[in-house]
């Protein structure tokens, strides 16, 4: 049985922890609002880009010399998995659920005899993946010093992916991130970025009218497709940012609640023990008096 002093110390330490988790929760809530705004304001661009791309891709499909970024290399032997995770932990299952999804995917591909290469964005992803796939990691990057993700960071990642593609280092690229749905639900998501995945049901703007292109259609596609890769990565990073804060907020909320419960339990046993000790002392005095 712990002594009264031990109990007092434990209560004090749990209270201190509770203060920290509470503070983290509030910080996450404030950051979440900003991250959510950023993710939402990036959507129109990505959507319009998707619409333009869908238009041009359907027009270009089947034609001779379709760019490789749409048509693929014609093989699917080497897969590049771009796994986006957070820089910090203490955000519930956020990092591990993305890592688990990527790991399952990688194992499946390996079982089929394909080559898997990993590009890890974010420090936590590296920590989680290096044990099993240390030989497959070709590249990693973290944005620890970056406060607010801007398009510049995404372009940096995108350019690297494109350079590798042009050098023929992989055939298919897949992006792993967590889509932000609500504060309590984040959905780990897989998205193919090379060859470009034209989303089903994208609203077609062209009503059969013939577009004029300037410069030529090929040149526009050559400019648009690489940019699309960066845009998709940018979007993933922003969604991830919002998801991370959401996950951290709910994780810290339940940690704060847990700490509260623990404090209640500890206080109860502390009081009980204190009372028991008083009673014991009383009995000692009374029995001492009676003995006289």
């Amino acid at each position, binding site marked *: 049985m712990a002594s009264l002093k031990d109990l007092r110390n434990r209560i004090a330490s749990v209270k201190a922890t509770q203060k920290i988790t509470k503070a983290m929760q509030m910080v996450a809530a404030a950051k979440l609002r900003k991250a959510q705004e950023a993710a939402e304001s990036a959507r129109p*661009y990505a959507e319009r880009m998707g619409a333009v791309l869908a238009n041009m891709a359907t027009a270009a499909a089947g034609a001779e010399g379709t760019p490789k970024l749409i048509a693929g290399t014609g093989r699917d032997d080497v897969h590049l998995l771009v796994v986006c995770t957070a820089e910090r932990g203490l955000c519930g299952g956020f990092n591990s659920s993305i890592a688990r999804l990527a790991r399952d995917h990688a194992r499946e591909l390996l079982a089929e005899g394909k080559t898997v290469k990993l590009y890890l964005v974010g420090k936590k992803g590296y920590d989680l993946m290096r044990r099993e796939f240390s030989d497959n990691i070709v590249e990693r990057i973290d944005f620890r010093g970056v406060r607010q993700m801007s*398009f510049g960071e995404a372009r940096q990642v995108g350019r690297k992916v494109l350079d590798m593609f042009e050098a023929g280092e992989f055939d298919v690229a897949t992006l792993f991130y967590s889509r932000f749905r609500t504060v309590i639900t984040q959905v780990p998501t897989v998205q193919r970025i090379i060859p470009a995945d034209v989303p089903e049901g994208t609203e077609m*703007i*062209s009503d059969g*009218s013939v*577009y004029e292109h*300037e*410069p030529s259609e090929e040149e526009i596609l050559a400019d648009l497709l690489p940019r699309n890769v960066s845009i998709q990565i940018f979007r993933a990073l922003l969604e991830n940012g919002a998801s991370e804060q959401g996950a951290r907020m709910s994780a810290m909320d339940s940690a704060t609640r847990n700490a509260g419960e623990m404090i209640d339990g500890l206080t109860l046993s502390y009081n009980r023990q204190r009372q028991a000790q008083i009673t014991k002392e009383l009995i000692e005095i009374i029995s001492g008096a009676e003995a006289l």
Partner: protein
Amino acid sequence: MAETFQFDLVSPERLLMSDPVEQVTVPGADGQFTVLKGHAPFLTTLKPGVLDIRSEDGASQRIYVRGGFADVNASGLTVLAEQAMPMEEVNAEIMAQQITDAQEDLADAGDDADKRAVAQKRLDDLKDIQRWLKVE
């Protein structure tokens, strides 16, 4: 009063503008062009330059864009800009920074002739704008 059409200006970070306007002059890669209502469907890349927008009430607004796409279709004009900011916010310092960036890109391009050409062109366009800013 001329008829208006829907004009959207979006950058990767946010939606900057979504209003009915009367006319917009766009710096296309092969030359400037002006869009009025009923323009034929048209898709083009942009070079760094200035969007000149005349809105419904005749007020005009100028926005600096650095590359991107313009898409004209039946529903209006959509400009997907790589970077965009109102002309009032653009000053010599920002332009100098952009030119430095472009010069770095050119240096990074190395021996790749295509990349060099693209970077060189961008640098020239930016220098044009800088000259033009100084004249104003």
